[in-house]
């Protein structure tokens, strides 16, 4: 391989676009050519700098509104629910109990759906209004105490920078009318909002993936808390985030105690 060829293919290698054979050839050339090795190193550095810098713009809220107005949303969910209820009214053979459980099923799904929708719009809002973080720091020991006194729970904050998810800060947000913690991470140029709310008291459940408006949402409950991780990173990476977060959390064993401690922190002044 000549330097001229390598100069072009080097970029495809950096971008992960080369098949194994070509990648091997380019790597072999770079290994033997100090000039191309220097280029390779320089471009790698530049690529890292580009992905670390905030080069994306956020669409102004006015523009978003104008476009949303031009795309009136229809309410299909209401009509589908109405048609189910209409089925009952027309006297189907379903027993009353069965009908009742069906209605509950429908309503619960709606509520869940609304909760997820709420989480997604909180995520979108955080990106829009330049209000991603209230406390901006990559230090977990600064983020965690910041929530003290602002919430009924102490959200666990772990630094996952070494695992590829950079902690960038924390923020108070509102979901379903309640104040929740949002811990903000960055994966390359993508933001991950991890919302932490007080658990509903039901049993822990494993993370499950949902998608809405093109965003991926992982939702799970553990340690008496409810977690929602929302991002536009792909589903695999978000799953990886959840796994790494939980693994890091497991390691800090004293954490559960601390959460319990703050839950019962009633004002017991003497």
């Amino acid at each position, binding site marked *: 391989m000549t330097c*001229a060829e390598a*100069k*072009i*293919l*080097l*970029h*495809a290698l950096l*971008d992960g*676009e080369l098949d194994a054979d070509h990648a091997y050839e380019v790597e072999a050339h770079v290994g033997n050519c100090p*000039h191309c*090795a*220097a*280029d390779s*190193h*320089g*471009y790698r*550095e*530049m*690529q*890292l*700098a*580009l*992905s*670390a*810098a*905030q*080069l*994306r*713009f*956020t*669409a*102004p809220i*006015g*523009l*978003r509104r*104008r*476009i*949303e107005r*031009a*795309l*009136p*949303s*229809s309410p*299909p969910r209401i009509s589908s629910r109405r048609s189910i209820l209409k089925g009952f009214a027309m006297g189907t053979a379903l027993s009353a109990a069965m009908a009742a459980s069906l209605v509950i099923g429908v309503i619960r799904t709606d509520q869940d759906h609304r909760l997820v929708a709420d989480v997604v719009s909180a995520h979108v809002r955080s*990106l829009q209004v330049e209000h991603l973080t209230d406390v901006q720091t990559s230090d977990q020991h600064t983020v965690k105490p910041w929530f003290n006194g602002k919430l009924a729970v102490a959200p666990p904050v772990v630094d996952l920078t070494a695992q590829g998810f950079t902690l960038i800060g924390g923020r108070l947000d509102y979901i379903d009318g309640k104040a929740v913690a949002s811990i903000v991470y960055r994966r*390359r*140029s993508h933001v991950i909002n991890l919302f932490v709310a007080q658990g509903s008291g039901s049993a822990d459940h494993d993370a499950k993936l949902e998608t*809405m*408006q*093109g*965003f991926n949402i992982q939702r799970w409950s553990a340690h008496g808390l409810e977690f929602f991780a929302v991002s*536009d990173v792909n589903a695999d990476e978000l799953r990886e985030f959840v796994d790494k977060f939980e693994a890091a959390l497991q390691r800090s064993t004293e954490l559960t105690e601390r959460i319990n401690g703050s839950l019962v922190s009633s004002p017991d002044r003497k």
Partner: protein
Amino acid sequence: MAGNGSNDDDEKTRRFRDAALPHLDDVYTLARYLLRNTADAEDAVQECYLRALRHFNAFRGPEIKPWLFAILRNVCRGECTRRSRSPLANNVAAEENEDAVPLWQESTVSPELEILRQRDGNTIRRLVEELPEPFREAIVLREINELSYREIADVVGAPIGTVMSRLARARSMLREAWIAEEQEESLLT
């Protein structure tokens, strides 16, 4: 109940909204880099979404983002031609027909880039904005919008080989500008 036709339209609009709105920031980002002007970028993005909705029936997945980009690009081109400022059209031929003369000198292992990693976003953004077309477009689609080569080729309507060589040129130009910027700064201090 309304007629079936309007229900279909509603359904189409809703599907479009769910699919396209999450990419608004991406589309706006590309518009900003292509037009280098806030007001023009806003107009172009709005026009892009209206056109995309009109032609949504013709959209054949899987990814909607490159499709939106391709529409945006057409809108931007129209805009540039209309204003006959034409940064998209003019530079292209001249720049691409040049021989692939290396734009950089003997490079050493570059400690300067280590320092440059600390550069703030504004400076890097400006350096990207100052790149001539079509190199600016190539680097924005790749580094900021994270498209694959195949997707970039589809968006700009060029063969993958062309995309590859544009990216190589774009990066060498950017790197050179980047180093020059750093040297200028060190002269001032």
